[in-house]
Structures are given as structure tokens and as C-alpha cells.
């Protein structure tokens, strides 16, 4: 099993100039395989289709979280409606302002273990998959790796009982 066998082929992606509102909409509407609606991250490609960043739902959470709250324990003193106010303010921000630019990627021919190695060591739960020309061909999500591991466990059990 290689990265390219598990990845979701690239269909939807973000552009640096997209507003946060558009990005959030795309994240929640993008379809992954059959059943689920929404993805947890999308790559950001510039006009030459070059990978320049990644936006995850965590980045969207950060975009409404004021930086000063990292400095002290102030969560208990927030008020109802605070997030909504900040969300309205953040909706006009651009993808390039909130994206993570230091992107962890895997190659399409990487083995599953190499993918897990990248994911765990870099705490990256969603990684773009690159082909030999360094173009993004898909996204590998932590949950798909998890399903693959589950499948392997079942296969093993099957093997024993037979």
C-alpha cells in the first residue's frame, strides 16, 4: 500500500487570494469519497499550480482566536457571542494570511509506514501527496490511514481463523 493508493485525488484546492469565508465554505463542502461531507484540510496552490501552503480547520479556529489569549488564562472571561464577532471580522481575511506555509508532504510512491513516519514526527494529520514533478496529486488524511490500519487488523484476524 502506497500513498497514492490511499490518497483522495486532488479535485478541490484553495488559492492564496481566496477569502477565509470562501475557504471555510470549500472545506465544509468538499466531498471525501462516498459518505462524509467536508474535509479537515485543503492544499493552497498558486496560479502555476505550485503548492504554497495548507489550510486546515485548525487554522480557521486560530483565525478567530485572539493572540493575547495564548499569553494568559483568559478563557473563563470570554463572553457569549465573542467567537461570532471575531468570525465576522475574520471572514474577510485571505487564505495567504492564515495558511500554514511550512507544509509537510509525502511522495506518491511513499510506503504507508513512511507516511505515518512523516505524520507522527511532524504532527501533521493531513498531508499533500506530490508526484515526481512535485505537483500535488492528492491529499492523504489521517483518517484514511486509520481505516487502512483497521482493515489490516481484520485481515490478520481472518488469516488466523482460517
Amino acid at each position: 500500500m502506497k500513498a497514492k493508493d490511499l490518497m483522495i485525488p486532488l479535485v478541490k484546492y484553495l488559492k492564496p487570494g481566496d477569502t477565509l469565508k470562501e475557504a471555510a465554505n470549500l472545506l465544509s463542502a468538499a466531498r471525501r469519497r462516498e459518505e462524509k461531507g467536508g474535509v479537515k484540510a485543503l492544499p493552497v496552490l498558486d496560479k502555476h499550480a505550485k503548492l504554497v501552503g495548507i489550510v486546515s480547520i485548525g487554522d480557521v479556529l486560530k483565525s478567530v482566536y485572539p493572540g493575547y489569549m495564548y499569553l494568559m488564562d483568559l478563557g473563563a472571561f470570554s463572553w457569549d457571542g465573542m467567537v461570532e464577532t471575531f468570525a465576522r471580522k475574520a471572514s474577510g481575511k485571505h487564505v495567504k494570511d492564515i495558511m500554514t506555509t511550512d507544509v509537510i508532504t509525502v511522495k506518491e510512491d511513499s510506503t504507508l509506514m513512511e507516511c505515518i513516519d512523516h505524520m507522527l514526527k511532524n504532527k501533521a494529520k493531513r498531508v499533500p501527496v506530490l508526484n515526481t514533478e512535485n505537483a500535488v496529486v492528492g491529499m492523504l488524511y489521517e483518517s484514511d490511514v486509520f481505516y487502512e490500519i483497521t482493515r489490516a487488523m481484520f485481515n490478520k484476524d481472518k488469516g488466523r481463523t482460517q
Partner: protein
Amino acid sequence: MTLETVTRAELFFLDLPFWIATAIFVCAYVLIVSEKVHKTVVALFAAGLMLVLKVLEQNEAFHVEEFGVDWNVIILLISMMIIINLMRPTGVFEYIAIKSAKLGKGDPLRIMVIFAVVTAVLSALLDNVTTVLLITPVTLLIADALDVDPVPYLLSCAFASNIGGTATLIGDPPNIMIASKAQLNFMDFIYHLAPVVVVMMVVYIFVIKLIWKKKLVTQDELKQRIMNMNEKEAIKNPLMLKKSLIVLGIVLTGFIFHGMLHFQPATVALFGAGLLLLLSRTHEPHHVLAEIEWPTIFFFMGLFIIVGGVVKVGLIKWLSIQILELTQGNMFATSMIVMWFSAFASAIVDNIPYVATMNPLIIDMAKQLWPNLSGIQLLQHPDLMPLWWSLALGACLGGNGSAIGASANVIVVGISEKAGRRISFFKFMAYGMPIMILTVAISSVYVWLRYYVLGI
């Protein structure tokens, strides 16, 4: 005196170490001001050069009070940082800030005034950087709650911390350094500087009310957000809070009586830090110690050695002779020059290297004036005392003059920028410089009136 000192001064020029030390000193200070290389790196490298080029012997740099590291300053700073690092997680500072905002009943201007007073008092007891790091996040939260511009609050926080820090020995690093060199105690600072700081704060509050009155308005329903905050939720660890407050009480009592008990301030602080570490039952003190601002500590160490080098070769002595010739030994004129020059110098350069240089300069001036005296009789000669206070007032208050004048300002501007509200260099100066001039003017009148007219 003049003729003899000039010939003596000229002798220095023949000396190779004099030029080596002066070159290292000047290059280091230029690099520090330029900010091309981190100031701690510059200070440590220049200190290393002073030793390698044999301007100073290692023993002098490490163990001789006149030329080397002032361990009283270093240990006092480290100890206070340990105490504060242990106190922070208790939530006491969040409690104080939220309680203050509620005391202001959600009124933006009242909150601003109360925050200015709280910041000034905290700055007098803790160092300024710590104070603004503790106050600004809450300030930004309150401004968001009230939907008002946070910039006036942030500026006020920086100004109040620089004014408040002037009041005590531990309030601002210049005072710690001056106290150590001049062997002044905690109560000397309270007695000589706190009264004028109180006057300045009263004037300052009047000024901020005047400037911001019309600009800071909010709706009544937003005030309710502040009133709904429950400050008691801030307290995370009541037991540790009790222990911290007891230790802080012991340390402050120790500071008040350290002169009488013949303890150095660092002794008091070190005892407090050790006691609180013990009471905190920290099995692994690593993280508490790691949070000490080591770059600042090493900056101090490097500077002490650099300045020790130029003291040893006589540069500082030569400068002191020049100043005395300029003022003709008139102590009032010298005080005023020291105060105003210190204020403007501190607005441009970090006041820590500035005071590190000025301290030995003032001692050398005293040696020229009273060659037969030594020790505490020389350092605390009644005619010299106004000079120390002028230096402290100028160096501490000068910090308000520009965005880079004090570390607290740099922190405030940085936090403000992260919150999406950039305070430009000139915007800071537009408010800070008038406040600096106003407070230094008040200090000048105070020094003149108290020491040269009333003589008390």
C-alpha cells in the same frame, strides 16, 4: 585641580589598553544600538574580548566588584524572576486585572485610570517587562469586550509601568544597578523617589483623562460583559497562591528592613526564591528555572565586564573629569545635566547599558570632588545623593521617550502588532515624548526644591 587632572588625563592616551578597551566599548555600544546583532551576543563577545586581550584579568571580571560582574544585581534579578514564575500559574495576576476592570464598572475611561494605577503599583513591586506581560493581554480582552480601541490602553500601560517602576529599588533595572553601586537600600528609594512618582502619577492620570475622554465611549450593554466576568475563576491553585503571597510578604518585609538588618537586597530575594521553590514542592525545578530570562541576565553580565574594562583603563575617569569641568563643580547644574541627558539617552539606547556606564562615572566624579573620602562616605556624600536620584529618574523616565526606550515598550508594541493594531515608532513617540518631558520636568522641580532649596 584642573591643570593637574588634565595632565593626568592626557597620560591615558599613551596607553595601549586604553585604546583597546575604548574601541571594544564603542563598537559594542554601536552594535547594540544598531540592533544588527542580538544585544546579548554583542555583550558576551565584547566581554570575552576584554578578557582575551588582557584589558581585564578573569579574576577581576568575575570577582572584583569595581571591574566585574555585579552579582548583587544578577542574583536579585534571577530570584525575583523565579518568584514571579512560580506565582504566575496561580492566576493571581488575572484575578487582579479582572477585579480592577470590574472596579471601573465597565466604564472605559475609569478602567484606563484604574489600570494605570494598578500597572504602576505592580511595576514598582515587579519588573516592568513582567508587569506589562501580565497586564496587556487582559487589557486587550477588556478593549474587545467594550469594543473600544485598545491602543490607548496599551500605550498607557507602557507609560505607567515606566513611571511606577521608578519608585522602588526593584521596580526598574537602573534602580537595581544604582542601589548596588551606591549601596543604597530599599527604603532610600521609597523615601527619595516614591513621593515624586506619586505626584507624577496624579499628573499622568489627569493627562490621560484629558487626552482620551472623548475617544473612549462604549454602550451600556457592553459594560455588562465586564460585570459578568467572575474574577474568582482566575484562581487556579489557592494553596500555592497562599504560599506565594506569604513568601512575597516575607520578601517585601525583608526589602523594607534589609538596610537595618545589614542584608543585601539579593540576599532577601534569593532567600524568598529558595523558600517558595521549597514550598511549591516542585520535584522538577527545570521549567521554573528555564523560564528565567537568561538573555537579559547574560546581557547584564557581559555589560558589567565591558564597562569594567573601560573603568580599569581610565576612560570613565577621563569622562568624569570632562563633565566636572563643564559644570565647574556646580552640583545642581550637574544633577540637571545628568537627569536630562539620561532621559534622552535612555529614550534612544537601552537604559541598562547606559546606567552601567553612568554608575562608575558618577563614582569617579565623586572621587575627583572628595579625594580623601572612600566607601560609603564617598558613595553617599550628601552632595552626591541628588546625582544618584537624578540618574535614576532620568534613566527610568527616559524609557517613555520612544518605542525602543524601555523593554516594556518593545513588548507592548509587539503584542499590539500581533493583535492587528500596529503602533508606529512615531505614534509612540507622539505620546511618549511629551510624557517623558513632563515627568522629567516634574522630577527637575522636585530635585531642585527638595535637595537644593529645602535641603531635606
